[in-house]
């Protein structure tokens, strides 16, 4: 019984997968599986689903920091036990959903949640800002150009009211990724916060021999900026290493992913870019990539005021100007990106002009444009 370090393969169980989802369902979900007729959002954070059986499911959605302790999870379990017959779920954007099977159970649940300080903010439904899909940052990853949890906390504190009130033209999906690997849906978000490097990798010649296969490091660079090189170490030893042609580097970090002896991160060099106007759903205009509108903001922990202000500004400007159901990118497309920059009062820089592989498709090849303050 129990794990035996002397005999690790004894009784080994593998490939059993996750617990079966059906075993996890509350009764109201089991009874009405596939039978739902329609839903309503009775107030921000509270959904009502009605089934053809007459069954009803009320869902209370609460924001979560995603970086959760087991103490916190136990508290969630306590709540679910008290109100939801011992079931809780997480959404695809890291919110927590408590479900009850009658309207009468909603208010007690809300009261309980409200009684627990700021831990369970009810919201995140309908035309609000979503919780931020985000990544590890300085809490767990080796390649970040910025933190994740801290930036998200700073941003959400500032725009909190748009999480708890459905006062926007449409849903606004926020995401953060701490490096260009973009773990998350940053590349297709209404507003995305992206960690970016701006200094080419250093080469740790002393360590490279043991750490990397040089041909892989060389091949890692999509722009051929890395070449094999022979270098002389402090102790006079000649070794094979690599050198970086800094002028060709676009700071993608792929070399570091392949070779730990080539770190990029830097307190001044690394920071945040803001991308906007992406979308995943196929509604109306179809899925779209986020576009880079602010190429760089500094890392200013603990509260990242520049990034926070940038997100808030864009969010509020969109909210004040867009039409009903118009996602941020749909708005920008309708008014034209020159108007977007003007209305948001964001300085335009050459960095927003694509010069990568499919760049030509983004250049303006028509005389159709609007006169804005950009044209002197």
């Amino acid at each position: 019984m129990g794990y035996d370090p002397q005999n690790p393969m004894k009784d080994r169980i593998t490939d059993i997968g996750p617990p079966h989802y059906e075993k996890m369902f509350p009764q109201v979900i089991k009874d009405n599986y596939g039978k739902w007729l329609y839903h309503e959002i009775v107030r921000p954070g509270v959904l009502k689903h009605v089934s053809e059986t007459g069954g009803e499911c009320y869902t209370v959605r609460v924001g979560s920091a995603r970086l959760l302790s087991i103490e916190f999870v136990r508290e969630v379990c306590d709540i679910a036990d008290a109100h939801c017959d011992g079931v809780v779920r997480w959404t695809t954007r890291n919110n927590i959903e408590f479900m009850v099977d009658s309207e009468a159970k909603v208010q007690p649940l809300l009261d309980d949640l409200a009684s627990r300080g700021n831990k369970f903010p009810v919201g995140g439904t309908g035309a609000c800002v979503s919780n931020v899909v985000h990544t590890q940052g300085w809490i767990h990853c080796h390649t970040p150009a910025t933190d994740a949890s801290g930036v998200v906390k700073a941003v959400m504190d500032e725009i909190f009211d748009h999480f708890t009130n459905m006062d926007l033209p449409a849903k606004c999906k926020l995401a953060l990724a701490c490096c260009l690997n973009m773990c998350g849906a940053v590349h297709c978000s209404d507003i995305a916060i992206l960690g970016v490097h701006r200094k080419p990798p250093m080469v740790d010649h002393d360590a490279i021999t043991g750490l990397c296969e040089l041909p892989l490091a060389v091949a890692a660079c999509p722009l051929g900026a890395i070449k094999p090189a022979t270098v002389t170490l402090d102790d006079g030893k000649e070794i094979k290493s690599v050198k970086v042609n800094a002028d060709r580097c676009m700071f993608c970090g792929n070399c570091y992913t392949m070779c730990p002896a080539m770190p990029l991160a830097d307190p001044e060099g690394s920071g945040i870019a803001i991308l906007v106007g992406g979308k995943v759903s196929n509604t109306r205009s179809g899925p779209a990539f986020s576009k880079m509108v602010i190429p760089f903001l500094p890392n200013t922990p603990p509260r990242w005021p520049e990034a926070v202000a940038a997100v808030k500004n864009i969010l509020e400007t969109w909210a004040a100007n867009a039409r009903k159901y118009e996602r941020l990118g749909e708005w920008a497309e309708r008014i034209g990106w020159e108007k977007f920059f003007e209305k948001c009062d964001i300085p335009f820089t050459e960095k927003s002009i694509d010069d990568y592989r499919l760049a030509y498709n983004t250049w303006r090849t028509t005389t159709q444009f609007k006169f804005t303050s950009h044209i002197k």
Partner: protein
Amino acid sequence: MPKHDTPLMDELEKGPWPSFVSDLKRQAEKSPQCWDIVGQMELSYKDRMTHWKHGGIVGVFGYGGGIVGRYSDVPDKFPGVAHFHTVRLNQPSSKFYRTDLLRKLCDLWEKRGSGMTNLHGSTGDLILLGTKTEELEPLFYELTHDLEWDLGGSGSNLRTPACCIGKARCEWACYDTQAACYAMTMKYQDEIHRPAFPYKFKFKFSGCANDCVAALARSDLSAIGTWRDNIRIDQAEVKNYLSGANKANGGGTPAKGDKFDIQKEVIDLCPTGCMWMEGDTLKIDDAECTRCMHCLNVMPKALRPGLDQGASLLMGAKAPILDGAQLGTLIVPFIKMDPENEFEELVDVIEKCWDYWMENGKNRERLGETIQRVGLPTFLRVMEIEPIPQHVREPRSNPYVFWREEEVEGGWQRDIKEFRKKHAQ
């Protein structure tokens, strides 16, 4: 481990949004290594840099995925996080949990790890954040034996599939996303746990074109529910919207103007312009509808998906490293998704695709990059899928067609001497 002085971290305890710092501190009371998490984060906040080293390869015997190795680059200062590996667990489809199971998991992680988690990772795994190498095997043993739960994917593996809530609580699911997600997770446990691919591979399942699991943006294969017959219209409920008895968008977009205007809010926003009113009867020319979901979203009580349901399969979505981001490309416009036959049609597509990609994909080349490299026509050919206009947004505009020799009358072999007889040099 002692408490550190963390003025920067402490700042993040303020404000209305839940504070991960407060949460970390709360856990630290029980799991003292958490003080070192806070401490090292504080140092990162001062240095404006991560203090984690490039991940080493750690794992459990027989598995090539599921654990992400992680070590501190300041282990002397923060011995509690010297090792700080991540454990990824296959989450149950659509992430419902009974509390008894969750509590067991908490107990396990209290014993074997830092006590910190992510519910959930961006891919969908339940993530246990931070443990030591020596805890991995015991943890795995207890996880499988006591919780009957398994690890997720990492590395050049199939990653844990994910799905939207679908039929469990949504009126629009056009196929059973949980069933598909679970079936594929179980069928391909080997691919999840043992690296056999050129690079990672991700499945995601959304029940309709709203795509609530963002499959189209971030999965090598996404199945998005749709239908091929007509939108079901309940004209009585249409009238209830017109009268204001029903709230547009289920009440989800109250901000801009409250009086419902079906012309502005629905008909004018239909991307194909295939809707119109005849008196107070709503008409849809379904042959022109692209099932974008907008009208159903705005009038959930009046409009429902058709009954001949299935899914569209799109392939190749991925983040930008290195050729630029890709959205999924439509490969199979419509496929039946039948739990009864164990998703046979889907499985066929998956395996044909894998066979090709495993043979032809270069090292660290995602499926989408392979498709771009060999070209969509070639990919369709190897997939034995007939090319149809639905595969493209528009036909090519450059004239650079690759003809194959067998397609050209007379073949390619010609005799320059014969040619010269008619055409003097």
